[in-house]
């Protein structure tokens, strides 16, 4: 026993080193698997304060640029308003939920909340954006984020009371369902971590005519993103002879380097859609269930 204690005392520094390394690596890997890590909840609150101070100074230098964009957006908003609604068949509507509808019985499907970007990176392979709105302002996970021009930016992955963390399109694990504006054919947008100026569009069959310069917009099949908002333009068409699908390089419509104000878009039917999807999968694909 004495020898054991002596041994530990002798190598105490080494054990401290090992212990701290293991703690660091544990933080690192547990965070990557669970976004919910308590660690970041408090971290958001602490660094968020510093970040918002800094942002106040930084915003001052870009006011002119931002004003012009806001004006442009205000103009176009009048045309966009109707798009936030979907038509429902009132003849079969039995239950009404609390979501307000307008006089034409069109139900609000998407709700836009403005937010300011207080931290943003484009240099890593896994880029996150921090917003100054959090759970207290109604932000929840899985809401989509558009920039002030309406171009897709990312998806909210974590919220603390006053701040929200967004997984940018420039994140190697991000996957967003998109469509070609011209034909409506859909594919998935991804990023390989190489060039922040180019996203990858996969899963588009070769039968679809694609040209350089075609617009890519958010798809109608996405649960998070409202349909028809710009994602980017096709910059290069790569025809991989091994598969039946194109590999398209897409120049993103949002400029990730100077994001300042964004919209956080809530799909008011998200939970219902996601739940239905999950239930369907369970019912159809669960092998233990006996068929009737």
């Amino acid at each position: 026993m004495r020898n054991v204690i002596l041994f530990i005392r002798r190598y105490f520094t080494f054990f401290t080193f090992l212990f701290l390394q293991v703690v660091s690596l544990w933080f690192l890997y547990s965070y990557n698997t669970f976004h919910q890590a308590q660690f970041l909840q408090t971290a958001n609150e602490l660094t968020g304060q510093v970040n918002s101070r800094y942002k106040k100074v930084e915003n001052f230098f870009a006011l002119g640029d931002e004003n012009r964009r806001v004006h442009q957006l205000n103009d176009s908003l009048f045309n966009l308003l109707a798009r936030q609604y979907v038509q429902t068949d009132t003849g079969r509507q039995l239950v009404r939920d609390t979501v307000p509808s307008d006089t034409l019985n069109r139900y609000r499907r998407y709700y836009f909340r403005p937010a300011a970007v207080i931290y943003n990176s484009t240099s890593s392979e896994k880029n996150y954006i921090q917003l100054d709105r959090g759970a207290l302002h109604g932000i929840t996970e899985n809401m989509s984020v558009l920039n002030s021009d309406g171009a897709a930016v990312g998806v909210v992955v974590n919220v603390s009371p006053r701040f929200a963390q967004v997984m940018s399109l420039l994140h190697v694990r991000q996957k967003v369902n998109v469509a070609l504006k011209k034909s409506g054919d859909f594919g998935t947008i991804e990023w390989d971590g190489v060039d922040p100026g180019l996203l990858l569009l996969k899963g588009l069959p070769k039968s679809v005519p694609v040209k350089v310069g075609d617009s890519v917009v958010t798809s109608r099949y996405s649960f998070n993103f409202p349909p028809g908002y710009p994602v980017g333009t096709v910059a290069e068409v790569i025809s991989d002879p091994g598969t039946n699908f194109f590999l398209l390089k897409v120049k993103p419509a949002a400029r990730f380097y100077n994001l300042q104000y964004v919209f956080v878009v809530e799909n008011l039917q998200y939970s219902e859609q996601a739940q239905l999807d999950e239930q369907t999968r369970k019912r159809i694909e669960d092998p233990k269930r006996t068929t009737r």
Partner: protein
Amino acid sequence: MSELIRNIIRFALFLLFEVYVLNRVPHLHRFISPSLYFLFILWLPFALTERWLLLIAFATGLTLDYFTQTPGLHAAACVLIAYVRPFLISVLTPRDSSDFNYREPSPQSLLWAPYFIYVLILTLLHHGWLVLLEWMSFGSFGDFLIKLISSTAISLLLIFTVELLFPRNMRFRTNVGG
């Protein structure tokens, strides 16, 4: 200025510079991501015991991680260099290392050539560990090497710029009175 306050100010300055300057400037190339904040650990006084060194390094790394949203990544690299630091210092100063005449590692106290080796090895270790952890999930070995070498080169350039811009002129401490 007392030792403690000097180091606290340094800590704040290095971290703010790292988060709001180095992480913000557009990158030269996707392989080059220089950093400077770990110079804080390289500059810690000789008098610190190894355990304190490890704990301070861990705290430094973790604080940066709070800002960059990568919990544990920089902390791991910092703890590694803090562990290696005492060995390097004892190897690079062949004279009796028990009583140092200077307060902390600098070109003046270690002389230029050993100081360069000291900085080079710790920078390589720091970046190596960082890049290795970051690229463990994907990427090829060639990319790993290029990223390590280019980031280290640019970081060294930054470090020696800082070293020349802010010379720390320290008094020679003798045994007879301060």
